[in-house]
């Protein structure tokens, strides 16, 4: 879905179109593009049950959710420049690095969380997870409660997406522990 993004919302929206070329190399690609209208539509299909009600509350007021996740057969399928282009965007005014996890082990990757906010309002979140065989970019545009988002983990009953770091089938951080 191609989205023409309004100028007012552009600041929290990351451009990672340079990653498109990785689709051919990847074993598995997750590409989610949900603009405001699709979010509203999706919201109407969420039930009032506990988990889905929490999702509905969480996405209230969001302008978009964009996810790109690649899983590769071989390490080194993406370049440092690919990451740099994304980091350059999160270095701009308004963005702050919320946390960054850099693994000393080669098998694990780096995980960075950025947030854009003005005085009191969160205007967007970006998550960049880069492992040897996996690259994930999450871009949420609009006010979002990160704590509530984190608490949603494992509540949807979605089967394994195959986006974990490939070497042992476990997540990078779990390997470290």
């Amino acid at each position, binding site marked *: 879905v191609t989205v023409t993004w309004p100028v007012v919302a552009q600041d929290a929206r990351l451009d990672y179109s340079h990653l498109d070329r990785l689709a051919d190399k990847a074993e598995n690609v*997750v590409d*989610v*593009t*949900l603009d405001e209208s*699709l*979010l509203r*539509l*999706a919201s*109407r*299909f*969420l*039930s*009032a049950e506990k988990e889905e009600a929490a*999702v*509905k509350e*969480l*996405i209230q007021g969001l302008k978009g*959710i*964009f*996810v790109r*996740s690649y899983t590769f057969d071989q390490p080194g399928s993406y370049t440092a420049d690919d990451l740099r282009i994304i980091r350059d965007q999160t270095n701009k005014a308004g963005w702050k690095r919320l*946390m960054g*996890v850099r*693994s*000393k*082990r080669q098998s694990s990757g780096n*995980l960075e*969380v950025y947030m854009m906010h003005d005085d009191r309002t969160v205007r967007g*979140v970006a*998550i960049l*997870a880069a492992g040897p065989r996996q690259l*994930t970019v*999450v871009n*949420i545009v609009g006010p979002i409660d*990160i704590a509530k*988002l*984190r*608490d*949603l*983990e*494992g509540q*949807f009953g*979605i089967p394994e*997406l195959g*986006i974990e770091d490939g070497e042992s089938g476990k*997540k*990078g*951080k779990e390997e*470290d*522990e």
Partner: protein
Amino acid sequence: MNHIEDELKKTLGRTEAPETLLPGIMKRLPATSRTARMPWTARLANFFRAPWIPWAAAACTACLVLLVSGVLYYRVLAPETAEPFAGKTPVSGLAEIEQGRQAKEQLLIALQIASEKLTEASQAVNQPER
């Protein structure tokens, strides 16, 4: 013998009915038989005078009230719970329903990935690498 025959012919012979006979018969006929001769307006009026009409009207009113209540509930009072056709802008067709289901699926996948990554990050921050 001829006298008897004459009497029989006289008795069984065709005679004109008295003028009072027809009105008498009409009076004795039941009302329903008489309606056939009534104008349609009178018959319609009679129809609405039937004893079961009030009950039928009450039943129709009750159905109407239930229908209106149901529509109000699904469209206005409970748009949050009455999925997927709820809301002030109801979905317009099967294509939109399918699109909505796909959007919901994508949304849950996106949030799943985002929450996984945030959990990984917070776990790593809370438990420094060994």
